[in-house]
C-alpha cells in the first residue's frame, strides 16, 4: 500500500502541508520528489527515521510499488 504525504492539495491523496516528522521503519520503502518539477530528490530507499520537509514523500511496502508510482506519475530521475 502506498502512503503519500504531500504539500499539494489533491483529491485522491492524503494531504498534509509538509511531511513533518513522518516516521518510517527499516522495512519501509520511501522516496521524496518535487511535485512541481516531478524530479526525484531522494530515490527509493529503505531507511528508518523521522522526515520533515517541503517535498512530496511517498512511502510503500515494496520497492516495486514505488517504481510503479514513478512510472505512473512520470517522475524524473535526477541525472547527476
Amino acid at each position, binding site marked *: 500500500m502506498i502512503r503519500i504525504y504531500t504539500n499539494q492539495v489533491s483529491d485522491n491523496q492524503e494531504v498534509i502541508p509538509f511531511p*513533518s516528522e513522518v516516521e518510517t521503519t527499516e522495512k519501509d520503502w520511501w522516496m521524496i520528489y518535487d511535485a512541481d518539477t516531478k524530479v526525484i530528490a*531522494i530515490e527509493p530507499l529503505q*531507511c528508518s*527515521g*523521522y522526515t*520533515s*520537509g517541503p517535498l512530496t514523500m511517498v512511502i510503500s511496502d515494496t520497492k516495486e510499488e514505488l517504481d510503479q508510482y514513478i512510472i505512473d506519475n512520470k517522475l524524473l530521475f535526477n541525472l*547527476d
Partner: protein
Amino acid sequence: MVFVVKKDGLPTLIKSNTIFKIFVDFWSNTLGNFWNLAQDPYGKTITNFNVKYISGSGQVDVNWGEGINESVTSGTNINHTFGITKSGISIFSSSGANITDISCGASSPKLGGAISLSAFSSLTGFVCTGNGITAFSGIESCPNLINLELGVNSLTKFPSFNHTPLLNDLKLENNLLSGSIPSLDNLTNLKNLRFQENKNITGNLPSLSLLPNLESFYAIGCNLRGPIPNLSQNTLLKDFRIDSQTTSPKINGTIPSLSGNTQLAFFLCQNNQLSGSIPSLSGNTLLRNFSCHTNQLTGSIPSLSGLSNLQIFQCQTNQLTGFIPILSGLIGLQDFRCHTNQLTGSIPSFSGLSNLQVFTCQTNKLTGFIPILSGSTGLRTFTCQTNQLGGSIPILSRLRDLQEFQCNANQLTGFIPSLTGLSNLQIFQCHTNQITGSIPSLTGLSNLQIFQCQINRLTGFIPSLSGLIRLQDLRCQTNQLTGSIPSLNGLSALQLFRCQENKLTGFGGGIISRTLGDFQAQNNSLTASVVNNILAAFVVANRTTGTRILNLGGSGNAAPTSQGIIDKALLTGRGWTVTTN
C-alpha cells in the same frame, strides 16, 4: 540614382543595376564593378584585398566607391576601411590588364551585397570568403575559372557550373544554400568540393563517379539523404566527410567499398542511418581518421593492422558485434572509441599505443581484464564501464595526463590503485564492482570533480578531502568504511556527498560550503553529538535554494538531541528535507 564621373573620366559610383550593366558593357574588360554592396559600408573594414593581373605596362586600380582610386600591385594585399558611404566596389585597368585573380579577404562587420564576375573573363581564381554575400552571378563569363571560394557568406542559390570545366576548387561552405546540389558531372577537373554547413541543402548526395580528380568532399552540416555514392572512380580521394543534421530523412544505405581509395586519409560518415558492415580498410594505409559513429552498422570492426597512420577511429553507438581488433602497432593512434555497441571478447593490448589519448569501450559485453595502461602515458580518457570485465584496475600512476577514468558496473576485484600524482584527474568512477581495500589518498588531486566508489567492498577510512577545491560529487556509500566523515572544510564546489550504508562513526567538522545540497549519511554508526554537529554545520552553511536533502537517519545512527532537534527544525524551515532518527 547617382552617377559620378571623376576627372580621370572613370565612373566610380553606381546605384542602379541598369546603369551598372551599361557601365560594364561600355568599358568591356577594362572595368568591373563587381560588388554591389547591400548596405551602407561606412566604418566596415575589408582586409587582405588582393588582385592579380597580367600586364606589361598597365595599372590596376580599385575604386572603393567613395571617390578613392587605389592603385594595386599584382598579388599584394591591401586593407580598406570604408568612410564616405557609397554602394559598390569596382576594379579597373587603364591599359587593359588581364585580371586573373581576385581575393576579397574577409570583412568586418560583413559587407553583404551581390557579386558579379561578368566583367572578368580572364579570371582563374576568385576568393570572397567571410563577407556576408547574398548573391553571386556571372560565373558563366569565366570559362577559365579554376578556384572559386565563397565560403562563410549568405548565398542562397547554387551558381551554375555548366561553363566552368576547369574548376579545381569549389568551396561554398557555411552559406544559406538550399535545394539539391546541381550536377557536377561537367567538373571533371574538380579536386576539392566543399558544401559543409549549409543546413538547407537537401536531396541525395550527388554522383561523384565523373570526378576522377576529386581529393576532398565535405558535406557535413547539410540536410542530405540517400546513399553514399560509389567512390570507386575517385582513386585520388583523400578526404570524405558527410553527416546528417535532421532526425529524418538521413543518409542511409551502406558504406561503399573503399578498397580503391588508397589515398584516403579522412573518412567521416557519422550521425547517419547507415547500415551494413564497415568495409575492409586494409588497403587504406594512409588512413588517419575514420569515423562512422552513431549509425546502425552491424558486423564486426575490420582489422586495423597495418594502418600505421591511423590517429582517430570512432565507431561508437552502432550495433557492432564481434571483437575489438588488435591495436598493437598503431603507433599513431590517439583516439579509439567503440562504446555503446554489442562487442564481445576482451579489450586488446595497449602495447605500443604510446600516443593514445582517448579510449572508450563502455556499454558493450566485454569480458576479460582491463589491459596494462602504463605505456600510454598520454592517456586522457579511459572508459570501460557497463561491461562484464573482471580482474583489477591497472596501475594508473604513470598516466599524468589522465582526466577521466570510468570502470564502474563491471565485476572488478582487487584494490583501487594509487591516484597520487594524477593532478589532472577530473572524473574517477569505479562504483558497482567488488573492489576491496581502502580508498586511496586523494591529496593533490586539485582538479578532481567527481569521485564515485560506491557499492563495492571497501574498508578503511575515507581519505582527507583537503584541497579538493573542484570536487563536486563524492559517493562512497554501500561499502564497509569505518572512521569519520572527513572535514568538508574548503570544498567550495561540493554539491553532493553520499556515504550512507557504511560503518562511519564521526565527523571531521569544518565549514560546509553553501553549494552542498545533498548529504546522505544514513545507516552508519553516527553518535548523537556527531548528528548534532552535522546539523549545526548545515545551519551555518545557510543554503536556502536548490536541492536540499539531508539524511542522517537509518539504523545505527543516533537521534539528534537538544540543539540538534532545533537545528533540524531550522533547516526544514529553510526548505530542507531532513531525516534523522
